[in-house]
């Protein structure tokens, strides 16, 4: 109904538009078990369907909103991302293209057959291989695109009679009128000036406010907490983690300059940048915790943000004690690396806030043990980065950098100790949690088991040092090699092993990159060891 009125207007205006979606970014919508701002929903939907959070230069909320308003226009545009080569082949679509129009996929007669196959596998409840994971994604993409086009996924108005909010086609009376007014404001804003310089009109902005008031009036007690919505919108817009890594990066640069030509101003600047980065980092995490209502360690994305925070914190503390600037350099590099990663790999590190699985809800022990285990990873990550740096010194000139190596070794040792105490405590608290939640102190769950294996790895390293098997050089190597166990516990269990009680967080992808990262480091250790060994041999001759 609404669509037909607006259609002609929109056909005018589906070309270039800039920030028209701004006012609806903060429109509350019920989706995937929680209430979120429309901006978040649109970003997540566009990410799933198109693979990016923006479409050309258009913001997600604009694009996604127009899917519903001018559905036919979007049918023919290359919008749906298909990446899996095998799936493209099975669909007989161009292998060089990345995006395909919905129409071409809807009319592709292979699609129903392939979806049928997926269903067969699902009824047999077998594990999905990457091909079927890609099919599943396609199913989700097409399903979500259709549901948005028809307005069924757009639940903007609470229903006093049901937990489910009303979707656009279900709207009646006031709510429908207010929605139409808002949509018209949106369309007019786009079409204004012949569509050349689109920006949200005043009418549009007030129509959005009006619609929110009408929607709230339907069931005020069920409506969104607008303060939270506002903060989430702010988080989406401000993106504190991006600014944090930029500040950290500047800090690393200042530290490097300061290392080669020490200057007081440089030193001060590096501290300011690091403190700024740490402040932004902390701010972002507090914001996310407030929005999700839980500690920020419930999925891969959150831990990839949390762990470098811990590394920076430990480096601050250890630097005060040991006066070793290399600690700061290493931790800030770790932070830059991790935070950039969260931006680069949005499908693996999904930043959406999802409601928790039942077993993970509301326990003190859960939060405590996960926080402690992951923060131990932070100490190990710091030791790992220090190990990398020390091997570089070994490679350059062991004698010349003797002081750096000795200080670095002590920092590694201390970081490992912190990590071991925390990992042991966290693993044991994991047992306490499991005992409390389902009466099993230790059930050999793969996630816990790998945390335990990592603990064993580091304990072997420290006992090896006591036994005289591990000297300074081997300790640096060990800090790098043992970190592979942490990566397995942290990432590999979910993405490689994919079994066991912790399967709630399972996703796919990135395995080749992570494996590459680990293998490169092992090769690095092997290379430096060989060089050092030959050097020592030739010297002793």
């Amino acid at each position: 109904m609404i669509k037909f009125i607006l259609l002609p207007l929109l056909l005018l205006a589906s070309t270039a538009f800039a920030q028209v979606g701004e006012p609806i970014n903060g429109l509350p919508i019920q989706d995937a078990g929680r209430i979120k701002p429309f901006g978040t929903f649109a970003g997540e939907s566009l990410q799933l369907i198109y693979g990016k959070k923006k479409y050309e230069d258009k913001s997600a909320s604009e694009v996604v909103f127009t899917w519903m308003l001018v559905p036919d226009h979007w049918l023919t545009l290359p919008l749906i991302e298909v990446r899996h080569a095998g799936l493209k082949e099975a669909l007989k679509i161009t292998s060089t293209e990345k995006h395909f129009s919905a129409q071409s996929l809807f009319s592709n007669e292979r699609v129903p057959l392939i979806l049928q196959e997926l269903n067969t596998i699902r009824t047999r409840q077998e594990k999905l291989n990457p091909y079927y994971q890609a099919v599943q994604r396609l199913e989700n993409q097409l399903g979500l695109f259709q549901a948005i086009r028809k307005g069924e996924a757009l639940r903007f108005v609470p229903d006093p009679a049901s937990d489910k909010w009303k979707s656009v086609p279900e709207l009646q009376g006031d709510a429908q009128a207010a929605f139409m007014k808002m949509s018209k404001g949106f369309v007019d804003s786009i079409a204004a000036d012949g569509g050349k310089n689109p920006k949200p009109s005043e009418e549009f902005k007030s129509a959005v406010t009006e619609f929110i008031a009408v929607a709230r009036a339907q069931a005020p007690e069920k409506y969104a907490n607008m303060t939270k919505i506002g903060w989430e919108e702010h988080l989406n817009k401000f993106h504190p983690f991006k600014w944090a890594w930029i500040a950290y990066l500047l800090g690393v640069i200042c530290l490097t300059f300061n290392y080669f030509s020490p200057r007081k101003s440089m030193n001060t600047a590096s501290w300011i940048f690091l403190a700024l980065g740490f402040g932004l980092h902390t701010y972002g995490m507090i914001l996310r915790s407030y929005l999700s209502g839980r500690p920020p360690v419930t999925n891969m994305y959150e831990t990839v943000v949390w762990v470098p925070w811990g590394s920076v914190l430990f480096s601050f503390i250890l630097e005060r004690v040991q006066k070793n600037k290399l600690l700061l350099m290493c931790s800030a590099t770790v932070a830059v690396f991790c935070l950039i990663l969260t931006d680069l790999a949005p499908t693996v590190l999904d930043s959406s806030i999802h409601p928790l699985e039942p077993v993970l809800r509301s326990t003190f022990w859960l939060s405590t043990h996960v926080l402690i285990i992951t923060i131990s990873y932070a100490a190990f990550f710091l030791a790992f980065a220090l190990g990398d740096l020390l091997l570089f010194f070994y490679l350059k000139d062991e004698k010349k950098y003797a002081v750096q190596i000795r200080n670095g070794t002590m920092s590694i040792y201390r970081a490992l100790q912190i990590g071991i105490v925390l990992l042991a405590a966290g693993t044991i608290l994991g047992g306490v949690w499991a005992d409390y939640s389902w009466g099993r102190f230790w059930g050999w769950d793969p996630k816990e088991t790998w945390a335990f294996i990592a603990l064993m790895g580091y304990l072997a390293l420290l006992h090896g040092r006591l036994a005289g098997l591990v000297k300074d050089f081997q300790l640096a190597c060990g800090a790098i090699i043992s970190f592979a166990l942490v990566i397995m516990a942290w990432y590999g269990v979910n993405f490689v092993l994919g079994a066991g009680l912790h399967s709630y967080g399972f996703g796919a992808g990135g395995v080749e990159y992570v494996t590459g990262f680990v293998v490169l480091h092992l090769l690095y250790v092997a290379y430096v060891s060989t060089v050092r060994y030959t050097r020592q041999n030739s010297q002793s001759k």
Partner: protein
Amino acid sequence: MKKQQAPLFDRVIHFFANLKLAVFIILAIAVISAVGTIYEAVYMEAEVAQKLVYNSVYMYTVLAMLSLTLIAVMIDRWPWKQHHAGFVLAHIGILILLMGAWMTKEYGVDGSMAFNIGEERKYVTVKDRDLMVFASFDGQGMKSIFESPVDFLTHPPSEKNPYIVQLGSDQMKFTEYYHFAYRDAEIMPSDLERDGPAIRIQLENANVNMTEWIRRESKVNMRELDLGPAKIVLANQVLEPTGRNEVVFISRPKDAKLDYIIYNKDKTLRKKGTVAQGDTIDTGWMALKVRVLRYLPRSKEIVTYSKAGYFTPVTTSAAKFSFRGQDYWIGVNSVLRLFIEDTAYVVSYGFRQIELAFPLRLTDFKVGMQEGTERAATYESKVDVPGKGNVLISMNEPLHHGGFTFYQASFEKDETGRPMISILSVNHDPGRWVKYLGSFLIVLGSIVLFYFRRVKWLSNLKNLASQGDAETKHQERP
């Protein structure tokens, strides 16, 4: 103290107190654990990893060596000094933890209970399996003639190394075991008087197309199958309506035709008549047609098992045995009836049931959904406990009663998707506080240990600073 001991004891202590051995043991534990997680990932089941890796001879040997090493190193460092406090605490903690784990394994119960709403249960199902054989020689009562725990996963039977059940002069010889097997049942015509009827029904309209078998044993009055849009019933007499859209088929012995009667949701009669194999009934509900694809007045079910590579929710375990020259397969948690000459045998193979001292009754079960979705967010069971009344068990809020703890573990839905069966995990753990004590000592010990190490390190550091570029010494003793 150790100087007064016999030289052999001294040597043994020295051997086990060796730090290099300790490093080897720690790495061995790590490697075996890693193998276990790989087993679990490959077979998609925890039990396989548990039995074949974590509880294997290798693991136990390594843990025994670990215990010896821990004891030996503490004897070796005698008399202890102040800076040994952390190391002694942590190592005693590990020994106590291992002891607690052993107590749990030996004397603990780890099982589950599943009930429908309104049902009363007294038995806990545990993972151990029992094999039982009953026989009736005189056609009267069944007598147990064999009963034993079996573990075919750890000790798989084979042709070469069969598991033999001796029944007087006869024997049942188990020669094969599939831990993961697909069960395939085929329904075939039978000419035995005691076998019941079966029908193969197709339900069809523009949106639905389902084909299912329904089979009824002759001793059972009715079998029903809920196909969503309608319920299909196979009975031996006309039944009263139950308040669903339902089609009731009534079979008559020795007749190639079936009577049918169709009821509406409001319990009114919609239609009745007679059909034969191949006929179609138009129900009139949403253009839904019911077709009788097959009708077997006498039918038997032939069950076969094929080997599966790993666990899926539809796999089961099955074992093969031969008895009086014939081969049979039996699936886990199933019962096989054999009629041989005048004797009826019942073979039962399944999870052990442990009787509780008190019954529990599930009075209510609720699932809360994540807002606006069909995904479960919380589940809770209301359970009637003798002497305690109605108690609520929810996720993370277990019930403690009679030495057992009952946790809300999961639930199952009925055909219409309504949550019906609540599954509680039931646990009795005498080692719990021992493990907690051990854990506490480990953590405390590690903290103390590293505190002393730091003090020592700082003094080393001062020495080093005064000595210049001297090589660091690593061979400190804890």
